[in-house]
C-alpha cells in the first residue's frame, strides 16, 4: 500500500449495504413535501396575485388567483408614489453596515467568551443573555432620549450604533466556537501565537458557516426592521423600505395592491442573499446548536 494514497484508517466500510435505510417510500415523502410547500408558498402566491390587482379587487371573494387584467402598472407606480428606489438604497446601506459590524464584533466577543478565561466572564455573559429577554418597547424611550442627546437621531449612524452591537450575535458565535476543540488553541498558544493570531488564522477560517448564519440572521432582521427606523428616521430621505410600505396606508385609503407589489420587490434582495449563502448555511448552525 503506497503511503501516498488515501485510505481510511479503519476497516473497509461496508459497500454493499445502502448508506441509509429508507423506511418511507419516496412517493409519500414527495407528497408530504408538496403539501408542505403549498402551505408555505400559497400566501406568497396570493401576494403575487394581489400585487397585480386594483385595490378594490384585492379583497374580493372568491379569491381570484390569476387576475383577469393583470395591473402591471402597480409595479411602475410603487417607484413614483413613494421614493422606493431611495428606500431600497437606504435599507441596503443600513443592512450592509449593521451586518458587517455585527460579524466583526460578535466573532471577537464570541471568541473571548468561549476560549479565553478572564475575570467577570460568567457575569458578563449572563448579562448579555439576560438582555435578550427584555422587550425593546420598554427601554425605547430612555434610549431615544439618549440618542437624541448624542445627536444621533435622524441619522443612519444612529441606527447602525443601535443594532450593530447585538447580544444574539455574541451568543451565536460563542456557541459555534465551543464546538472547536480548545486544544487547537492550546497548541497554537504553545507554538507562540498571539490570541489575535489564533482568532484570525484558526477561528475565522473555521467559522465560515457560523458567519453565514449570523449574516442571514442580521440581514433579515435589519432588512425587516420597522420600529427602530420609524422612530429614529423622520426625514423622508433617510427612511427605509419597511417605513415606505406603511406609507401606502394613508389616513383615508389603503393601497393594498401597491403594498403587495412593493413587498414582492423588497423580498428579492433577501432571497438572493439567502440563496447564495445556502451552502454554508446548514453546517453553520449545526455547530452552534450542538455544543450548547
Amino acid at each position, binding site marked *: 500500500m503506497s503511503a501516498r494514497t488515501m485510505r481510511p484508517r479503519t476497516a473497509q466500510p461496508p459497500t454493499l449495504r445502502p448508506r*441509509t*435505510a429508507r*423506511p418511507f417510500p419516496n412517493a409519500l*415523502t*414527495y407528497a408530504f*413535501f408538496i403539501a*408542505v*410547500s403549498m*402551505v*408555505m*408558498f400559497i*400566501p406568497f402566491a*396570493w*401576494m403575487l396575485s*394581489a400585487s397585480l390587482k386594483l385595490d378594490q379587487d384585492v379583497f374580493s*371573494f*372568491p*379569491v381570484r388567483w390569476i387576475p383577469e387584467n393583470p395591473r402591471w402598472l402597480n409595479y411602475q407606480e410603487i417607484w413614483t408614489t413613494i421614493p422606493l428606489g431611495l428606500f431600497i438604497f437606504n435599507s441596503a446601506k443600513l443592512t450592509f453596515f449593521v451586518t458587517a459590524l455585527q460579524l*466583526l*464584533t*460578535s466573532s471577537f*466577543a464570541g471568541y*473571548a467568551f468561549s476560549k*479565553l*478565561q*478572564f475575570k467577570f466572564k460568567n457575569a458578563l455573559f449572563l448579562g448579555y*443573555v*439576560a*438582555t*435578550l*429577554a*427584555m*422587550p425593546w*418597547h420598554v427601554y*425605547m424611550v*430612555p434610549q431615544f432620549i439618549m*440618542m437624541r442627546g448624542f445627536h444621533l437621531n435622524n441619522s443612519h449612524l444612529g441606527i447602525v450604533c*443601535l443594532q*450593530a*452591537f447585538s*447580544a444574539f450575535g455574541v451568543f451565536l458565535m460563542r456557541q459555534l466556537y465551543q464546538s472547536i476543540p480548545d486544544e487547537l488553541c492550546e497548541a497554537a498558544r504553545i507554538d507562540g501565537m498571539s490570541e489575535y493570531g489564533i482568532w484570525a488564522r484558526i477561528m475565522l477560517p473555521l467559522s465560515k458557516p457560523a458567519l453565514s448564519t449570523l449574516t442571514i440572521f442580521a440581514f*433579515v432582521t435589519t432588512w*425587516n426592521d*420597522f420600529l427602530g427606523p420609524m422612530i429614529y428616521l423622520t426625514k423622508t430621505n433617510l427612511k427605509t423600505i*419597511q417605513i415606505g*410600505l*406603511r406609507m401606502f396606508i394613508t389616513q383615508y385609503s389603503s393601497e393594498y395592491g401597491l*403594498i403587495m407589489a412593493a*413587498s414582492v420587490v423588497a423580498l428579492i434582495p*433577501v432571497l438572493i442573499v439567502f*440563496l447564495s449563502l*445556502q451552502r454554508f*448555511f*446548514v453546517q453553520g448552525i*449545526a*455547530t*452552534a*446548536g*450542538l455544543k*450548547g
Partner: protein
Amino acid sequence: MLATNQRTDLARRKEVRRNLVAYSFLAPNLLGFAVFTLGPILFAFVLAFLSWDGSNIITFVALDNFRRLIDDDRFFTALLNTVLYAAGTVPLTMVCSLTLAIFLNRKLHGRNFFRTISFFPYVASLVAVAIVWNMIFNPSKGPVNMLLGALGVHDLPGWAADKDWAMITVILFSVWKNMGYYMIIYLAGLQGISPELYEAASLDGCNGWAKFRRITLPQLAPTSFFVLIMITIQCFKVYDQIYMITQAGPGTSTLVLVYHIYNTAFVSWNLGYASAIAMALFILVLAITVIQFRVEKSFA
C-alpha cells in the same frame, strides 16, 4: 528558580495581561452594547420605581407601580395569554421544524428547492404576510373555511374574529413563519449525527421509529435545548404578530404582556408602570430559562 513571591508576581502579571487581552477582544462589542443597549435597559429597570411620562419631571414612587400591578386585571389576563401563547407555540414549532428537518435530510431531488420554500415565510416582511394570513383565514370567505366547509365541517371556526380561536390563529401564524428558521437549525444538528449509529441500530434490528427515539432524539438534545431557549424567549416577547393580526382582540383574548406594556407606555404614557410590567416579564423569562438550564444539566 524563582523566589515564591516573584513567581506569584509573575503569575499575577500574567493574569492581568490575560484579562487585558480578553477584554480587548470584548471591547468593540461590549462598549457599543453597554452604551447603546445596556445603559437604557438599566435605566428602564430603575424606571420601575419611578413615575415618568417622558416629558415632565421624574418622581420617585418606590413600590407603588408594583402595588398597582397586583391589582391590575389586564396584567393577569395578559400574563395568562402570554403563557398560553408560549405553551402552544413552543412545542408546535419544535415538532414541526424537527419533522421538516428529518424529511429534508433525506436524499431527494429538489431538496434545496424545498428548503428554500420553507425558509420563505421567515424572510418575508411582516406587514404583507399578516394581511395575506388574515385573508386566507377569513371566517366567511377565506380559502381555509371554504375548504373546511367543503369537507363537511359545520361549526366553522371564526379564526381571528372569534375570541376562542384568535389565539390559535396567532399561534399558527407564528409557527408557520418561524418554522423554516428552526428547521435549518435542526437540519444542521442532524448532519452532526454519525450514520454509523444508524447502521449499528439497523444491524440490531431496530425499525425507523425506534431509531428516531433512541438515536436521533438523544443526539439532538443539545440542539433542541438551544432551540427551546430561543423560542421561549421570543414567545414571551411577542408583539408584532399580535399587532398585525388581531390587535389584541377580540376583547382581550389575545392581549399579551408586551402589548399591555406598549399600551401603558405609549397610549397612557405611564413609563414607570410600563417598566414595572416589563420587570415582571423579565423575571418570569429568566426563571423559565434557569429552569430549562437546570433540566438540561440533569439530563446531560
